[in-house]
């Protein structure tokens, strides 16, 4: 009896410690340096599935981060900013919306199940009740069901303890920050500049990235697109031709070349764009190009 009680106390101790460890871990690193990122992490991107505002690359998420930055600069508190967003986007914009409606089931069902399981366990494990009920009950059955209960409880304790200890090791190594590669930094800056419609500056950064990775045609294509949008059609044409020199049927290469040729040599543009449509009829830009050619 005392030994069993000791076991129960030990088991409960392990569970409570594991639960506390889990709670502390999920409370997470509180000390974010960037207040904008901190507020954004508490909000969800309304245009994406399951992405936080801090991570999303969608245009509206970028705008929402801008709004946060503006409001932080005005000295508004994170809670005030969250409330401002809830007024416009509803509770679902919060990373942790208040538990109401079906969301409440997530809490209620486990609690009810735990309560039910506990009651059933108490009934089975209470010593002597079945034996006292009468000699007709065979001795083996209550004993074996008691063992099953104990084994299940031990299994649960072991499972929770294992998860609490091993959770850190299960985190994928991808979260480690990648080594600072100058080309990667230039690329990221260039994409940001493109987001702000500063295509000339973006093209300059793509050129810098290309000096570090001269063989990367993906960067060369981005350069060509940026030049096209910066209204530098001859530059875009030159970059696209370089890409096509390596891969003559590159759909994006043909697309940029064709679009650039509409300015530089309008007579040749339809030929190139038709070649683009032949190579990649399902390309996202294909409909637009068909319309261009049609008009």
């Amino acid at each position, binding site marked *: 009896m005392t030994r069993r009680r000791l076991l129960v106390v030990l088991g409960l101790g392990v569970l409570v410690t594991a639960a506390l460890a889990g709670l502390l871990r999920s409370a997470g690193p509180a000390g974010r340096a960037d207040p904008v990122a901190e507020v954004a992490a508490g909000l969800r991107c*309304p*245009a994406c599935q399951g992405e936080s505002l801090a991570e999303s690359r*969608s*245009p*509206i998420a*970028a*705008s*929402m981060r*801008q*709004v946060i930055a*503006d409001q932080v600069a005005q000295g508004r508190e994170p809670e005030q900013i969250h409330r401002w967003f809830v007024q*416009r*986007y509803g509770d679902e914009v919060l990373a942790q919306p208040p538990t*109401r*409606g*079906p969301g*409440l*089931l997530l809490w*209620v*069902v486990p609690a*009810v*199940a735990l*309560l*039910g399981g506990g*009651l*059933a366990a108490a*009934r089975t494990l209470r010593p002597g009740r079945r034996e006292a009920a009468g000699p007709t009950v065979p001795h083996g059955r209550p004993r074996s069901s008691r063992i099953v209960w104990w084994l299940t409880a031990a299994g649960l304790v072991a499972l929770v303890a294992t998860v609490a200890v091993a959770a850190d090791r299960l985190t994928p190594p991808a979260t480690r920050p990648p080594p600072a590669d100058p080309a990667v930094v230039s690329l990221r800056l260039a994409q940001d500049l493109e*987001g*702000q*419609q500063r*295509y000339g500056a973006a093209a300059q950064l793509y050129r810098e990235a290309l000096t570090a990775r001269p063989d990367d045609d993906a960067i060369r294509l981005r350069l060509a697109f940026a030049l096209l*949008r910066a*209204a530098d059609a001859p530059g875009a044409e030159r970059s696209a031709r370089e890409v096509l020199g390596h891969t003559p049927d590159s759909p994006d290469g043909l697309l940029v070349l064709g679009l650039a040729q509409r300015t530089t040599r309008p007579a040749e543009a339809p030929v190139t764009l038709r070649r683009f449509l032949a190579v990649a009829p399902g390309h996202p830009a294909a*409909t*637009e190009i068909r319309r261009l050619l049609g008009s």
Partner: protein
Amino acid sequence: MAPATILLLTLGVGVVLAAGERPGPGVAHRPRAAPALAGTTLPGQRYDLAAARGHVVLVNVFASWCGPCRDELPLLVGTGRRWAPQGLQVVGLNLRDGPDAVRALLAEARAEDLTVVPDPEGVRAVEWGVRGVPETFVVDRDGRIVAHQPGVVTAKWLEQHLAPLLGTP
């Protein structure tokens, strides 16, 4: 008996909670005051939605880089011209775009006369609770949003939401 009771209890709680969640009719479309929308239009004139009281205003959030926005533009412009005498204004809120790209789009759609308020950082769109482009709002003569369409609008949708406000059959 205990497991059956628990199962029933859980089901009961689930049903009660799920039933409580269902919104009543009309809740999603409850009119609300339109947020501010003021700025300098593409040709450099001043536009303020607050000054458009008495008009029905169709606010379309769009971008030249968004294919569906380009597709619906002619319909919106046509609707604006058709119902302008009854007091309809169409305003384009141009999300995170470049002025040259928008001008080219307007020229292509023969919609140079459309009132376009550029929103290069998208902060005005966020003020309106926009989730993506295109998105369209109908603002009534009292400055309240009475209809909202995330995604492309159809002629039927426009007819359904504008005709009663404009008093056209």
